[in-house]
């Protein structure tokens, strides 16, 4: 009795998934919706390097508590390492040490930052003036620049702003350009400006910080300077673009040094991940639970490193896309090129955005199709022909990226994430359909595929949907049950009713 079997199976799966989700929702108090207002961010620093048997000492600088960012919680993890925190000059840092390390080493520092909650900023005393670090031959140029800027400014803040402006406007041959050297990056400008301010006996320091307005898997630090006007520190930004809303910039460490310093290892790589924290509600819930239930949480996706969490946030919506595809094909009756092609295109749309994604898809498909229809004349065998089209597709994507980047559209950079093999197979199938069934049928199927991809995208990229599947991954069981049930859907497809409607007259 396969029908009863299926009903029991799907019933069990759905009941299991729903009751697990209900338990987490009602008993553990997991949030049902993403906290869009959350100002809590999880940041993870992951340093990896190769060790060669010698003692290893690695120091990771820690973020500073400020008036608008509170460190809620922080954690250090590294297998077999002892971790101590210490003060070093203006910064705090965590020192990871191990007597003997061999092979690849991974160190983690995780911190939960609440920029909504005002924490008490540590009282900072008046800074001690520090000597600038100019070489003797650069001193006259520096002094000239400081004198000129001092004449145009009234206090420490305007002096700093004027110096930065002059350094930004450096022309080849003038004293500003001489001081900046051959590498006038914003970071270098900040460093020189700090030295110039110190030369003018104005306390100043370099600040490295992290922008907290976008989720990033590989976040980059920006650098600005702070100047002391006699009562408190003020931030001065080298360029307008490096200045998002100031409260979304998390100051991390001061001074020109790097984030991670390493002794006894090589090939150091540091990845910083920034994500909005969806687990504040979860953490509050967990805090009240017994130890056994805490384990349940530790074995959930929240227990994974941040990088993997970000990956799973994408992975877990794929099943939903697949389910949608099943509905659109078997219940609605859409024809698409390739079974799962629209889902993969929808995933690519998550990186490019919908409008840009559709434009890129159409351009690559149209150009690829033109090349493929031309290649048809050369009478090539199947596999070399597919290979040739794949090479052309890769070339097209590279070309498109360059063109859009030159046009100042950064969205073009993500076009490289389009699934190239899928695009190639789509072009090949579309050509065969074009030749066999005519252009109308081919275009119709291409439009159908694109439509299905767009619908999938709109649903799987919805913030609430993504949150639901990440916080309640057991919903996959419900999805599986629904997909199994659809496997026995024997009713008409929507488009079929239209096709057979003449029989209903």
């Amino acid at each position, binding site marked *: 009795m396969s029908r009863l079997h299926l009903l029991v199976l799907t019933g069990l799966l759905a009941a299991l998934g729903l009751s697990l989700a209900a338990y987490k929702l009602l008993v553990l108090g997991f949030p049902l919706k993403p906290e869009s207002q959350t100002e809590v961010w999880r940041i993870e620093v992951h340093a990896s390097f190769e060790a060669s048997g010698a003692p290893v000492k690695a120091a990771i600088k820690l973020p500073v508590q400020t008036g608008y960012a509170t460190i809620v919680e922080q954690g250090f993890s590294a297998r077999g390492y002892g971790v101590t925190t210490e003060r070093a000059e203006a910064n705090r840092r965590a020192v990871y040490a191990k007597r003997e390390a061999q092979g690849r080493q991974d160190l983690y520092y995780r911190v939960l930052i609440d920029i909504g909650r005002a924490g008490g900023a540590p009282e900072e005393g008046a800074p001690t003036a520090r000597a600038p670090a100019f070489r003797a031959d650069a001193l006259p140029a520096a002094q000239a620049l400081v004198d000129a800027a001092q004449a145009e400014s009234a206090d420490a803040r305007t002096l700093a702003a004027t110096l930065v402006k002059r350094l930004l406007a450096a022309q080849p041959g003038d004293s500003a350009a001489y001081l900046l050297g051959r590498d006038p990056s914003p970071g270098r400008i900040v460093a020189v400006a700090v030295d110039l301010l110190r030369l003018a006996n104005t306390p100043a320091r370099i600040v490295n910080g992290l922008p907290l307005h976008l989720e990033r898997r590989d976040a980059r630090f920006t650098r600005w300077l702070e100047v002391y006007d006699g009562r408190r520190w003020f931030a001065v930004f080298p360029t307008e673009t490096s200045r998002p809303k100031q409260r979304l910039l998390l100051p991390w460490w001061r001074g020109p040094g790097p984030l991670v310093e390493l002794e006894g290892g090589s090939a150091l790589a540091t990845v910083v991940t920034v994500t909005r924290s969806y687990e504040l509600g979860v953490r509050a819930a967990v805090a009240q639970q017994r130890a056994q239930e805490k384990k349940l949480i530790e074995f959930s996706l929240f227990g994974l490193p941040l990088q993997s969490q970000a990956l799973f946030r994408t992975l877990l919506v794929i099943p939903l896309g697949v389910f949608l595809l099943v509905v659109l094909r078997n219940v609605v009756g859409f024809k698409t090129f390739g079974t799962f092609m629209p889902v993969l295109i929808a995933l690519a749309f998550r990186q490019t955005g919908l409008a840009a994604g559709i434009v890129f898809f159409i351009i690559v498909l149209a150009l690829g199709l033109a090349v493929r229809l031309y290649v048809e004349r050369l009478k090539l065998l199947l596999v070399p022909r597919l290979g040739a089209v794949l090479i052309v597709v890769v070339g097209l994507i590279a070309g498109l990226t360059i063109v859009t980047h030159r046009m100042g559209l950064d969205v073009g950079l993500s076009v490289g994430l389009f699934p190239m093999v899928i695009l190639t197979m789509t072009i090949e199938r579309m050509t065969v359909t074009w030749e066999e069934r005519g252009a109308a049928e081919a275009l119709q199927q291409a439009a159908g595929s694109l439509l299905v991809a767009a619908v999938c995208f709109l649903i799987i990229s919805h913030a609430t949907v993504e949150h639901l599947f990440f916080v309640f991954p057991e919903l996959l069981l419900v999805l599986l049950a629904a997909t199994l049930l659809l496997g026995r859907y024997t009713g008409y*497809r929507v488009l*079929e009713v239209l096709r057979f409607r*003449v*029989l209903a007259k």
Partner: protein
Amino acid sequence: MSGFLATARTLHARGVLGINRRNADYTLVYNPRNRYPLVDDKALTKTLAAKHGVAVPELYAMVEIDRQIRDLPRQLAAREEFVVKPARGSQGDGILVVTGRAPDGYRTIDGHVVSEEAFAFHVSNILSGIFSLGGATDKALIEYRVRFAPVFDAVTYRGVPDLRIIVFLGVPVMAMVRLPTRRSGGRANLHQGAIGAGIDLARGETLTAVLGNSVVETHPDTGARVPGIAIPHWQRMLEIAARSYELTGLGYQGIDIVLDRDLGPLVLELNARPGLAIQIANRAGLRHRLEAVLRDGVKAKDPDARVAYAREKFAAA
């Protein structure tokens, strides 16, 4: 929306079979997967049919690897007319009908001339699996070109008209004749623009026809009336269809038959997933007939009894 649901309900009441139900309730249930290769590979079907004494178009040559293509001109030197088809093709894709020689190549049914080189490329494409189900590598068959009987001359634009009979558990349940048009390029495929005319199983006479998804009375190119044509050898065709169940073991299949003017009915191919447009051609649903076959336990009877059952039971209204 309510109009849509009403249409769906009417279709269901009239027993129109949808693709989901065809797959879930018939092909998945009555077609054992290990039998599919018998019909998916036309070379296998041919040998099988010949072994059971069912007439098929004669096989002139078979190409299995690319280097055999070089020998083709020599093998075909004596043949004026022939058909090239993929062994595992579907829906008539990849079929090339050659009707004669031209100074620089072959003349095809639709009047084009295909150069020796383009011909070799076509065969090579067949081998690489372009036209095959699932894209697997394939064989190319070169066989007798059917000289069709004149019965459908008035309603055919070039090409070969063929008959499709749906057979359920050995009982012919529905039939149609597919007539090539100018739009279908001489091919007897409904989705390529051929017209399909239903057949009254009892009398062996054509009913109204369908072009695309709409009902027509006349052939779009010749203007001749389609309904009312009596099909020769009808009893013989139904017998071939009924026996095809024992041949393949597939409970739900479509059998494609052509009528040669000298050789009579020849089986072109069998299909384990026959399309559903036949319902439009007959203006009748399949499901009630399939359910009747199950209800009446016809499966147990011998082929002749099954044919008799079909002719009595499935007469056009």
